[in-house]
């Protein structure tokens, strides 16, 4: 089975982003960029499917600027077979990314599409669901366990009340939650090998996709800062404060 896995280039999760001084956007000058952690989990899941002999080919796809090639090389080092970059310098919304991915899927006809549940920059949590709508295929978001059997995908999902199990007909889109797996580290030989794996570049124009934005960013600001309060000396003082000062317990 052919597996396509989408990866996004985002600010590294260790970086604390700040607004630019004019408040127009966040300041991303000279910050470390990485593969989105949830996408990394999706790549790991795809590679494990290949190792089990279920996936016959794993294709990593990214949509974004030229530098996304770094994240695609990471995916190749982790075990993807080949990569496709849909290259554009325009700012991209989830719907536009889903449209680009749909065009790639139309050309590649994957049986399974693995994605992160959300990217840690925009925190949108939309692209997988949107791609599934555009492809008119099945979807399982927030996956914590995936198994493939008899042409079906069985997915355990993390939902508000606990866990839910769905059975999907293929092709299907599965978006990863944190506990789907623990991604491996790429070994040096695999990093070297990844440099020789094929990486195709296309543009949204070549795919016939309009990526014109629908949403305008008017500005960004820091959230209201919470002030540190006081230190209490013991449990008795804590209970007294909660009862008589904050009045949150009786």
């Amino acid at each position, binding site marked *: 089975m052919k597996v396509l896995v989408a990866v996004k280039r985002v600010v590294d999760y260790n970086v604390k982003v700040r607004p630019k001084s004019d408040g127009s956007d966040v300041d991303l000058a000279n910050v470390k960029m990485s593969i989105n952690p949830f996408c990394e989990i999706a790549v790991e899941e795809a590679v494990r499917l290949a190792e089990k002999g279920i996936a016959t080919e794993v294709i990593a796809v990214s949509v974004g600027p030229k530098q996304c090639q770094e994240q695609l090389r990471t995916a190749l080092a982790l075990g993807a077979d080949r990569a496709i970059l849909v290259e554009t310098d325009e700012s991209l919304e*989830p719907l536009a990314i889903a449209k680009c991915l749909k065009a790639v899927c139309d050309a590649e006809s994957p049986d399974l599409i693995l994605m992160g549940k959300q990217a840690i920059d925009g925190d949108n949590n939309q692209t997988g669901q949107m791609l599934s709508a555009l492809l008119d295929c099945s979807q399982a978001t927030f996956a914590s366990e995936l198994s493939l059997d008899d042409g079906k995908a069985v997915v355990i999902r993390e939902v508000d009340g606990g866990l839910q199990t769905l059975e999907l007909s293929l092709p299907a889109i599965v978006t990863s939650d944190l506990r789907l797996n623990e991604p491996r580290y790429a070994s040096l030989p695999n990093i070297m090998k990844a440099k020789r794996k094929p990486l195709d570049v296309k543009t949204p124009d070549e795919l016939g996709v309009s990526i014109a934005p*629908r949403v305008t960013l008017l500005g960004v600001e820091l959230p209201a800062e919470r002030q540190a309060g006081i230190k209490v000396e013991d449990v008795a003082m804590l209970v007294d404060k909660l009862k008589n000062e904050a009045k949150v317990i009786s």
Partner: protein
Amino acid sequence: MSILVIAEHDNSSLKPATLNSVTAAQAIGGDIDILVIGSNCQGAAEQAAQVAGISKVLVADNAAYGHQLAENVAPLIAEVGAAYSHVLATATTTAKNILPRAAALMDVQAISEISAVVSADTFKRPIYAGNVIATVQSSDAIKVLTVRGTAFDAAPAEGGSAAIEAVASAHDAGKSEFKGEEVAKSDRPELTAAKIVVSGGRGMGNGDNFSMIYSIADKLGAGVGASRAAVDAGFVPNDMQVGQTGKIVAPDLYVAVGISGAIQHLAGMKDSKVIVAINKDEEAPIFSVADYGLVADLFTALPELDSAL
């Protein structure tokens, strides 16, 4: 302006999360209808009709909608939503699963987890795990929005008497099938609805020690949460996780026990009204957001707190 709120429910009853979206809809302004999609969901529909300020309740009652499968529910939302200026749902895992799919079917760029309404087309929302708040303006004809529940008060659940209308349209894509669920059974209030939440972190040491937290929570009528570290260590199940990738809570009182206060966790609880931190490390970042900090070993402080309550 006409606004469609998608109900969060379990077929028999309306979930309180719906009421936060009603308040967000009121902030936008206009006629507000509620759409209840389910199977044998008359009970939920009747409760939706009681919500104050609702014009009418639309009910799509069909076996295919019983488990809120996105492939079946999203086309219905796209179809019904086409007659409205705004489609809203509170950002539960159900809505997060379905609404973007409906938006794509409508060729709309959805806006996730709005935390404030600036105007009918402009909204604020947290990005980068809540480290930054963005103000965004939509140019789509129909706005499809999920609403961060903690950012909007619940609308009154009673006082209305909206008419209930049936929606006949049925969609059964036949692409996915519900096989089962493991729902945590608990007499404690649901985390996102609880007025008080007591959470434990890695400092709890193991799952058994959470009994100290449960005991205190039961005396306070509180929900119980956990940090990602405690969940990853296997102390407690994942549905208890509070944080950026878990549940977002904003109770009147949040008690963090043995939680260091990683950004990931703070993103899920820093809008709580009063925060208490109990941690033996006085440098722990959790103290920088706590109204009341107690530097103490939790294994002595928790039994003391338990007997003081």
